[in-house]
């Protein structure tokens, strides 16, 4: 395993250096659609961060050991947009799409993570936006359902 980690680390470093696909300052990283003023809004990383961020540390099925995430609470996003809607249709860069109940995201304090262990996350590290639940805070979250709702490389969210 340490061996793999070493390889992967080099892979991440390599890709991070050579292919800064969305490194452009002010580029849109997330688009939100739905029943709110304007009906559609795009966010750059800086804009998202400006909404205020939260941090928690948790273990996940996709990481070794505990990881600290920092990002905007989904509830905060809803609050800022004054958005209505029961369901968030979340779509990833790889076209993976899933319907998540807004209530579930809000109640279970899911965040739109922008940083992992203090670093912005590139696409190769599930970035730039990663919906993550505080799994360690509530053992009931550790189910396939919430794993499937933890979408990485999030591109857009449609509130319905």
């Amino acid at each position: 395993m340490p061996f793999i980690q070493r390889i992967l680390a080099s892979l991440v470093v390599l890709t991070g250096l050579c292919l800064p696909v969305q490194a452009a300052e002010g580029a849109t990283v997330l688009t939100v659609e739905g029943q709110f003023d304007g009906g559609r809004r795009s966010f750059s990383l800086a804009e998202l961060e400006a909404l205020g961020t939260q941090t928690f540390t948790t273990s996940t099925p996709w990481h070794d050991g505990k990881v600290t995430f920092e990002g905007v609470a989904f509830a905060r996003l809803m609050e800022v947009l004054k958005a209505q809607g029961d369901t968030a249709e979340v779509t990833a860069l790889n076209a993976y799409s899933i319907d998540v109940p807004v209530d579930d995201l809000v109640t279970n304090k899911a965040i739109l993570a922008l940083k992992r262990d203090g670093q912005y996350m590139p696409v190769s590290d599930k970035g730039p936006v990663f919906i993550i639940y505080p799994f360690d805070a509530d053992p009931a979250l550790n189910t396939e359902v919430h794993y499937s709702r933890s979408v990485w490389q999030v591109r857009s969210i449609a509130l319905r």
Partner: protein
Amino acid sequence: MITLVRRLAIIAVLGLGLAAVIYSHLIVSHQSTVDQAKRYDIAWTGFNGRLEVTSLRERVARFAATGDQDAANDVKLFFQIVVGRLNTWGAGEFGKFIASSPLREARFEGLVRDLTSLEPLVEKLEEPQARAQLMRDLIAISTAMDRIGGEAYSASLNEAEAVRKSLRGQLTVETWITGLLLSLGSLLVVFLLLQNRWLSRAHATAATCAANHAFLARHDALTSLPNRLAFHDAFALEIERQRPGCVAVLAIDLDGFKAINDTLGHTAGDTLLIAVGDRLSKFVSLWPEASAARFGGDEFVVILRVEDGVSEALDKAENLRRALAEPYRLPDGTVVIQATIGLAVATPATPDPMQLPDNADLALSHAKARNKGTVQLFDVTMRADLTRRRRIESDLIAAIALGEISPQYQPQVDMENGRIVGVEALARWTHPILGRIGPDEFVPIAESSGKVVELGRAILERACAEATLMPADVKVSVNLSVAQLVRDDLVDTVQEILGRTGLSPARLKLEVTESIVMSDTDRCIATLRKLKQLGVAIALDDFGTGYSALSYLRLFDWDELKVDRSFVRSIGSDPHSLSIIQAVVGLASQLGIKVTVEGVETEEQRNLLRHVGCRIGQGYLFGAAVPLNILSARLLGTALPAPAGRRAHLRLVDKSPSAS
């Protein structure tokens, strides 16, 4: 059977407990199986990796076709996505899956290396050669990712199968346990039903017992007649009922039942009681609204309603008394027994009808004391009598101790010369509240309450002590009661008293009546002989009133006969009486027995008695019973008869003829 079922039930309960333990254990292991089942599914991330590398190949192909900058950016994005996928595969749960097989681990390392080596080609997409190289290498990478993804899928399937298998195994065990629980439960239900049946049987038995007890609580066990409790309830009801006529209560007592019990035995006594109860309830059942009860012993009570008041009640009571007096044919023989009945009728004047049973009882006591074998109607004076009687009874012991009851002495005089030759000690009671109480009243009370022995002893002792203060030629007579005579210690008592008082035995004369001797002749005669051996004289009192006076003369060597006053009273009018006295005197003198005549009240009687040879007389003519101090004064002038004034006075206070 019950024990077996109980054991089986205990086993069933233990089995249930065991099954519950196994079940809870199963649930825990179930939990872990389910936890395993909900673990992160690596098949999905494996599948997505395969999809992503395919998408990357598509993007490269599209760029090759279009040469579009957006398509180029897409290729770069998807390359990053695939890199991200491999990052995901290398860590967390998928990382563990990769590491679980060294071969897979090596393959994965190759995959990562290969993908890393593609990066320069992605940067040079515009170059056809690089692009072609990229397409070729991506095929190899796709194949490798397919392989690992496929393995992840099958590993996931295997894990799911293992979980299913474990669940199936647990299900089987659960099925067995459920079956076991059901069977044990059914077994318990069967036990429950059985126990229910036993319980209802026990309940039925208990109910029967309770009914029996209820009957016994309210009925007399011997005669099955209602008992006192049932009678009082019925009586209270009868009083409350507003019906025409009056309620009457009969208190019935058999005369001499104790003697029958003593002579024929308790079994015969019980048989007689059953027969009496039977006859009583049959007779009473002929009367409307009447019922009989047994209070215990030979005490029966009847409650009835009479329309014509007291006269009808008296008639019915008399009829019943006659019916009960008919002979009873028992297995041991025919028994004739009389009944005495006390009657109380609730007339409109009766203040408290609830007192009827008490009143009937009082009337019964009254009749028992005076006229056995009759019906006695209650009279209000009986209640006062009872109160007085109870007072006397309760004060008796203290009166003996305090000397309130003390002997007085009636002179026995030689009718030839008027000299006092002896005195008869007679018990007298001066009660501080009730005043003077005659012996005819308190002696029977003392007898019935068992205090007569103490009374007799106290009088004897006092009389002996006081006799020592009298001239030596004066003898003192003291009466013995039956209760004293049947006691084994009488002789010792007399001896002890004589010793203590210092009275010469020759000066003491003990008087017994014929009826006392009749009660237990052999024993009494034996006692009297012992007394006589002490030197004490024995007199036969009330001679001539009993049944077989002459045979008693033969049985014992009497020192003296006391001719009953009834003969003396009638000598003036009935010449036979005088002849009888003359004959007795003649007979006695033949046998060497002295004669004293009692109840001499007139000079005429004295002269007649002297004429037929009587020497010693006792009676009011010679003086009534007086205390020692007065007697002492008399003895100083012994030849003189009592002064006329005093005599009259004494007769007033001691008017009862049976006093001596």
